[in-house]
């Protein structure tokens, strides 16, 4: 058995029915994505300029063109459950070059928001939320940075919530208002125990 480990499962996957069925399509999903993103994924003609512009695509399986296609067809589950959704760096190169004047980045951002409503979000994103809540920074200052800043003649702490910690409260107020921190804590706890 050990020698064939993984093979039957892999074969099952290959033999699965991968046809596109009409009941997978949710036209409302297309409309919701368009409303949230304020752009027009239904106008995509699949030229691939977005994927070719993407700094993430050559390094991962992330294909933004596929997500725009899913938005166009209303393939909600396929789009929101694909972990690739979280590999966009939001550099907006695709948005700059799209010949159909779609903003693919905004389509991704809309889908991320919709996924979050279903608790589908990678833990590292939630930890960023927690870091912002405590420090006001997604990437807080550290000793290496502090040393580098001082070497350049700058204050060790930048003039942000690091320099003025009293303003962290305001950020916390916003995150509390949208229950972002609460939800992040809850999901992290569910995942990591």
């Amino acid at each position, binding site marked *: 058995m050990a020698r064939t480990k993984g093979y039957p499962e892999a074969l099952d996957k290959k033999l699965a029915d991968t046809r596109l069925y009409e009941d997978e399509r949710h036209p409302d999903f297309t409309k919701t994505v368009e409303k949230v993103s304020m752009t027009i994924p239904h*106008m995509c*003609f*699949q*030229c*691939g*300029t*977005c*994927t*070719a*512009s*993407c700094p993430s*695509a*050559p390094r991962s399986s992330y*294909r933004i*063109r*596929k997500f725009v296609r899913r938005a166009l067809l209303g393939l909600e589950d396929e789009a929101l459950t694909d972990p690739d959704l979280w590999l966009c760096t939001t550099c907006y*190169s695709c948005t700059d*070059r*799209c*010949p*159909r*004047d779609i903003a693919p980045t905004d389509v991704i951002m809309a889908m991320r928001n919709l996924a979050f409503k279903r608790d589908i979000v990678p833990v590292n994103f939630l930890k960023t939320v927690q870091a912002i809540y405590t420090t006001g920074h997604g990437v807080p200052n550290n000793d290496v940075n502090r040393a580098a800043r001082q070497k350049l003649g700058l204050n060790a702490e930048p003039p942000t919530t690091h320099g003025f910690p009293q303003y962290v409260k305001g950020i916390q107020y916003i995150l509390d208002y949208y229950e972002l921190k609460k939800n992040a804590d809850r999901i992290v706890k569910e995942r990591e125990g």
Partner: protein
Amino acid sequence: MAEKKTKKETAPKKKEATKATAKAAPAAQKAPAKEQKKARVGVFICHCGTNIAGSVDIEDVQEYSKSLPDVAFADNYQYMCSTPGQKKIADAIKEHNLTGIVVAACSPRLHEPTFRTATKEGGLNPFRFEMANIREQGSWVHMHDREGATDKAKDAIRIAVAKASMLEDLFPKTVPVEKAAMVVGAGVAGMQAALDLANAGIKTYLIEKNPTIGGRMSQLDKTFPTLDCSQCILTPKMVDVGRAENIELMTCAEVEDVEGYIGNFDVTIRRKARGVLTPDEAEAKGIVGGGCNGCGDCEGVCPVIKPNPFEMGMKPRKAIYIYHPQVVPLIYTIDWDSCIKCGLCVDICGDKKAIDLEMQDELVKVKVGTAILATGYDMFPIEKKDEWGYKKYENVVNSLEFERLICASGPTGGHLVRPSDGETPKKVAFLLCAGSRDNTGVGKPYCSRFCCMYSLKHAHQIIEKIPGCQPYLFYMDIRSFGKMYEEFYYRIQDEGAKFMRGRVANVLEDPVTKNLIINAEDTLLNRPINLEVDMVVLAAAVQPAEETERTRKLFGVSRSMDGWLLEAHPKLNPCGTTTAGVFLAGVCQGPKDIPDTVASAEGAASAASIPIHRGEVELEPYFAQCIEEKCAGCGMCVNLCPYQALALVEKDGRKVMEVTEAKCKGCGTCGGFCPGGAIWMQHFATPQIIAQIDAFLVGGAK
């Protein structure tokens, strides 16, 4: 035969009637319409299948129409434009003794002529017909509002009835047509159109801004899908144009001004100073056996070197030059911007005395009956899409530059080389839809239509000429829709061209090797591509030629949203324009390959020859009329008229205004202005329009 007969019958009547209307018009102004014959209007409502009936309650509208004042009869039918529909109108006129007809249907643009004919067949003057548009401006825009669409249809009919009850008999004027035509632009479209017109026996003025005819086609190396040498098939036509007796060719010429109307256009042409006399011009000046014979001695001694625009700037020319050896006419031209007037050319030309360094532009006036615009295209400045690096990286060229580089008569003698180092490329990428199908506002939203096919041809040419050279075609769709085009696509794929289905995101340059790195996605494999090539060819979009805008304004031709000239109807009248007597040929109307361009040119020539062969055209009788007893002779209208149609004349010892009917376009400028209300706009007379406004604001069923 039948047509001739009616003509003969109506001809004598026409004259009498025109006189009668001129007098009847002021009479109508003085006396209210009711004192004339009591108006009896017939209303016909069209279902247009479900186009109208789908959102308008036809029965309700018909009942309403019957209740309107002056309506003697109302009816409806599935398709009023059909033969039975038209017969209903003719029959009702006789049966109910109608004096005016209203058809509530589509737009007058579409079917006014149809229903006017039907009205005429019923024995009524065709101008006693009025159309109510309840489709384009009714049912179509209020598709989901039945009640609103029905109410709007009632309004439209009420207004139309108000006018129809006051319409008068009008008689179109016929004017003779000058037996000559003009073609603007001498590319393949203009040449074909001019040859057709000339062969049909019509004197044709062919105007070309460049020193030679031939246009874009003469810059191409080969033509798809047959791979004929472009020059080889074009040169005979160029020679024919040069020789045709009926063609008066004017190169280095531009249209300066256009006046008049169909049948009688007065066109002023600026013949730009060429600096060189043709043998004919020389003879006219008394120089025996002189004039330019194209020997080229002048070019040999000229010290000024400039880039040749015909070679896309990749080959030098002198300040006195010809574009290429096959130019028609073979006459040298001086580029005044670079000539230093050293006089060396004049000396070497000697007794021929062909060169005149003091030559001035000349204005020539010609009269033509019809005109064809064939102004062609320019390449879109593809450097505006900076991600592809045109004009930034040396080895990125556009497709017209590629044509010159691969052409046997081009700057490299047909040996394709990289501009950076003169090396033969081994890998060439073709970027299709470069600037076409682009909705960003930078490029062009339309498909440029011939780039797919010429890129296939380019791929073939490099495979044929450079053993081991690999073409890559980056495409979104291959549009090979013409005769033998799909077969050509098959052939090129079989020859080894690689088709990559993906639009190129950006092109980068290796600063050392000057090679280019292409980033695209193979959308069929779903994988990003990183490809290093020696050369990139951008199949750039095309756009209307620079001078198109100025020329179209002179001829009063509209343009569509994308900048190309607007045809009268995209399907049923693609060569005509909304200006009578002006036609379109070739790419100026929209991107076309050579077969389509030639076909459109022949269509335009045929259309342009019809009024000339008929010898006369009918003008719509919408001209202004002066009510002489009211005219104070102030003459203010004379200067307002945009068409120079008005003049002050002496009559019975005082000055009154007089209209040259053939010049009047019925714009209404004078009629709206006249302080004494002394100008009667036929068919759009003040009482008629007031009646329409009254009907809309206060009218309605009792």
